[in-house]
């Protein structure tokens, strides 16, 4: 097994609803989707965003898009106009999520590195 960052297998977009941030992650290839489903759990995301997300984390599966959507409650310092944060709408939580490390088998790690050198 090898450890890689989620950004190697997924892209993402994030937005807001009040004090809740939504982070959607999308597998680059259909075969990466089950890896995300297995490893990028709500509990792991909650832990990943400690110091940012002070509420619960909900996860939703969107298999037709090979995507997962997360709701990070209480993660925007009140959100909207209340928030004092530069990123009051959590627009950059997309790539913050993709910093997460996941485990993939060695052949997939080689494939990822191979596609990088193309």
């Amino acid at each position, binding site marked *: 097994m090898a450890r890689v960052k989620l950004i190697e297998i997924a892209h993402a977009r994030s937005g807001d609803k*009040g004090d809740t941030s*939504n982070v959607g992650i999308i597998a680059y290839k259909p075969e990466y989707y089950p890896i995300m489903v297995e490893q990028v759990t709500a509990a792991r995301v909650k832990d990943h965003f400690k110091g940012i997300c002070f509420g619960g984390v909900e996860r939703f599966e969107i298999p037709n898009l090979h995507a997962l959507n997360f709701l990070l409650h209480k993660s925007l310092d009140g959100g909207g106009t209340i928030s004092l944060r530069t990123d009051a709408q959590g627009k950059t939580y997309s790539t913050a999520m993709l910093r997460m490390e996941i485990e993939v088998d060695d052949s997939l790690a080689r494939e990822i590195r191979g596609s990088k050198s193309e």
Partner: protein
Amino acid sequence: MTRPIRIANGQGFWGDSLQAPIEQVRRGPIDYLGLDYLAEVTMSIMQKQRSRDPRSGYARDFVPMIEEVLPDLVEHNIKVVANAGGVNPEACRDAVIEVARRKGFAGKIKVGIVAGDDVMDRLDDFIARGIELKNLDTGEPLSSVRSRVQSANIYFGGRPVAECLGKGGQIVIAGRVTDTGLTLGPMIHEFGWADDDWNKLAAGTIAGHTVECGAQCTGGNCMIDWETISNGADIGYPVIEANPDGTFVITKHEGTGGRITVAGIKEQLLYEMGDPREYITPDCVADFTSIQLEQAGTDRVRFSGITGFPATEFYKVSVSYSAGWKAVGSLVYAWPDAFKKAQAADRIVRERLERLGLKYDEVLTEFVGANACHGALAGPPPSDIAEVVFRIGVRSEDKGAVERFTREVAPLALNGPPTVTGFGAGRPKTEEIVAYWPALIPKTEVQPRISVIEA
């Protein structure tokens, strides 16, 4: 129908490109131009404008834009659907009609409004009759902030837009119609979709969601392969080719920049997503897990298979209210030890605020360049980092305390850590916080008000 209806989006928010709506009208064939001008905060700004001047309170940019494209609209019979009406759709309509007459289009164009969403003067009646307008996030009744309310608007959907088009409106000026309703309305009107044709209403809603942020579905703010997205300066805004069966293609005018791919579209589908199976609008509940996407040529993505569920019995209400004051100030620290200097500046400001005995609901510090976006996830900045922005903000119900804070940042230029700059803009501005209170109201309580008049 022998060909699909082409619905263009030319505005993702109030403040989006001034040029986009004009390009959408001129650089390729379209039947409809949809323009989304409203955000939660916008309504309270407009409400304040109207209280000062009864002829204001709408998106002013809309009127000169219409003036410019009027000949194109009339020549090609292009219809415009915009929630530019804000809290004063009548005044917006009057301004458009005045422009049309002045430009020689009297008798040649009809302008309609969708109003009735403004329930500001009915709040006390609602509360008195036991409609508590509980905050969807906190469960608190609206009575707890009633005296501080600045605006209150119902979100209407696509149905009243379709009705206004049906009455002959070529330019439909709405108040708080949902972003998705601006797209769905023309489809209901053109295709005659029934009130309970949930799958098709869901399809139109998802089309609306895809284009509601303008170029964010055509290569803007797109993460995948962003460096190779071509010609960003001339990025094309989205055009929907909608079919009566609910399938549609997202594309853009030929020759424009940007890129439309399945992967890019997926990013936009996830934007501001909650439960993907329950995307609730006034018209229906759309299921994003039903969407099938397919690349159907260069810069063309086809949507099919969409399903939906019955609409709920409620409208969403967006209430804005005054929630205290805030200010944010910043200074820039340069190499060497930029991060350490910024941290020292933070300690000094906080200690001075404490010595002054000032209390805040929150004091928040960020170090831009080091951790403002990703917090601790970013890890420690490199020790030789070239510069760091020290950014500190406060929030309080006490305006005086916030005002006093605004005097405590600039002095650091002379009396704090060295190699500091970036105070050119002077002291921070004290801003009123206008917060947003989402609630639900039974649909039976409000009716959209629709009218059409000729220029």
